[in-house]
């Protein structure tokens, strides 16, 4: 299938020269990134640099106009079947949780497995309860999202994405709408997930998470990756001046 010779077959996500325009505005300017299976990539950068736009193109919440995106050997094109397949392999967690408020926690989690994967109710329910166990809120299954704290909601959102048994998880600033103690709860779950070998792309400015868990950190500016490398190196000796400036602001 993918006859790309720049990266080995083992790459889970391959983006080559991805461009995106919003009308006239050039939001992504030739992003090239390859993520290996089991790799955890953290994406950082100033506001408006295109981080969200980038990870949203990976599961087609936004359409890219130029370049190639290949997820697990499937290229993202206008082919509806490919889009469906990629979406069911890529889980996404949003900054604002986006739980379905009219469904209980359990229904939120079982909805997609039952409707998209055609799983029966018992099995979906069993998996959902296991996942709630894993994100450490098994007792909240029958509550509605509105009755949970922000941290609990975000963990339900993670469980909901995991219920589709994705091969890749995308996180778009999952903790920036949360209070400090809740951030900790959510990060613990994300660390567990990373340790379990999940391929992850996380847009986050949590330095500790990046330092301890990420295999690689990408620094975005003005619609492109300006610098990329292992966290230890990028944080201690950033080469690009934009990176230096940004890090100095974030580290005070």
């Amino acid at each position, binding site marked *: 299938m993918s006859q790309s010779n720049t990266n080995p077959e083992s790459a889970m996500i391959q983006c080559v020269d991805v461009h995106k325009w919003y009308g006239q505005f050039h939001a992504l300017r030739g992003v090239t990134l390859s993520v290996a299976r089991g790799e955890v990539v953290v994406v950082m950068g100033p506001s408006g640099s295109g981080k969200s736009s980038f990870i949203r193109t990976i*599961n*087609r*919440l936004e359409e890219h106009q130029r370049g190639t995106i290949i997820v697990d050997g499937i290229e993202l094109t206008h082919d509806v079947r490919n889009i*469906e397949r990629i*979406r*069911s392999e*890529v*889980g*996404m967690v*949003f900054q*604002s*949780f*986006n*739980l*379905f*408020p*009219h*469904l*209980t926690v359990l229904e939120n989690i079982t*909805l*997609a497995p039952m*409707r*998209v994967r055609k799983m029966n109710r018992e099995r979906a329910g069993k998996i959902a309860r296991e996942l709630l166990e894993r994100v450490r809120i098994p007792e909240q299954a029958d509550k*509605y*999202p*509105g*009755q949970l704290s922000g941290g609990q909601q975000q963990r339900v959102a993670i469980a*909901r*994405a995991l219920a*589709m048994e994705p091969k890749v998880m995308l996180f778009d600033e999952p903790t920036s709408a949360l209070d400090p103690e809740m951030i900790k709860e959510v990060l613990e779950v994300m660390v567990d997930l990373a340790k379990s070998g999940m391929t992850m792309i996380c847009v986050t400015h949590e330095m500790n998470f990046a330092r301890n868990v990420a295999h690689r950190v990408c620094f975005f500016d003005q619609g492109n990756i300006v610098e990329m490398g292992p966290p230890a190196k990028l944080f201690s000796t950033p080469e690009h001046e934009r990176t230096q400036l940004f890090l100095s602001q974030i580290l005070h």
Partner: protein
Amino acid sequence: MNTSAALPPLTERISILRWLRQNLFRSVADGAVTVLGIVLLLSLVIPIVTWALTEARWQVVIENIRLFAIGQYPIEYVWRVWVCVLLLALICGVSWGLWLFRQRAVGAAILTAFLLLGLLPGALSIPATEKVAGFGLMLPSLAWLVAMSTLGALGYAIAARAPARARKLVGPAWILYLPVCFVLVAGLGPDGLLATVGSNLWGGLLLTLLITAVGIVASFPLGVLLALGRRSKLPVVKAFCIGYIELIRGVPLITILFMAQLILPLFLPDRVTFGPISFRPEIDRVIRAMAGVSLFSAAYMAENVRGGLQNIPRGQFEAADALGLTATQKMTLIVLPQALRMVVPILVGQFIGLFKDTSLVTIVSLLDLLGIGNTVLAQPKFIGTQREVYLFVAAIYWIFSYVMGAISRRLELPQSASRR
């Protein structure tokens, strides 16, 4: 502590005085306005009450109560209408038991509605001189009330014991209820228990309620589709829906009812032929009016539903997409349930409006509640009883609208919807 025993009445008197001062006599001008208001009130109420108790000939209503209720519906089949009412009691009981058992206000409102409905069958048995072929009609109103409350309570009892999953049955039960009623009222065959009763014989409150119910049920899906179409990304679909909605909302209902009466039949082909079967398609006048009302109401429904759709955050759509739901699943499972719940009170308001608007079918010569009123006034015996007749008609409309409005204001949606 003698004083404390004497105090309460005193404070009470003082607080009444204080209430009077604060609410009626804050200043001299305020006092004058109050006096003026009381004079105005009395000068309106006293003559009206005097008239109603002494001069008014309420006999016109009492003697024609059956016409007001069901029009010329054949008396031997009237029991079919009452079966509809009893079924309604049962379904209401079940729904109350399953959905709203904590909401006493709603229960009380539903009960009131039934008490009123219960008085009608009783009232119908008043012209006792008539020979009655069917059964059921002569039962005194008390029996009807007992029957309805029993059925309602039965439904409630069953529902209260039923498992939570039974909730899913309530929707279908309501959806099924209307066709069942329609069959009961209209009949099926040329004779037998369910002999056909032509729509020219439907009348009075029965016809008003039938047109309202059909209008609600038909305009609902149509309105939802139009609302979705208006938000569609496809320019052609969007333009079409906007055109329809704005056209309908821009013209008076009466023009649409006339169009339904005069032009709708012309849109049908002269003959329809399916192999050996060939017939001349016709729609009777009641159905035409129902079509007109539905087409009209759909445009308003669409705008109300659109209001709900606009309030669904973008994140909900994105989360559904990210989970891999199809466009249809996204709409039916995620977006519409939330949007519709948001606009339930507005939709109830619109349905009340629709109920009131059905009175316009009088102008295209149908004998709904108001139309029957006009025919009653033509009886030589009751010349000059316009006030009595129209006040009675207005009172019926008022009670139904007010009770429905009161229910919708009290109705608390299941907690999930009101949150977030």
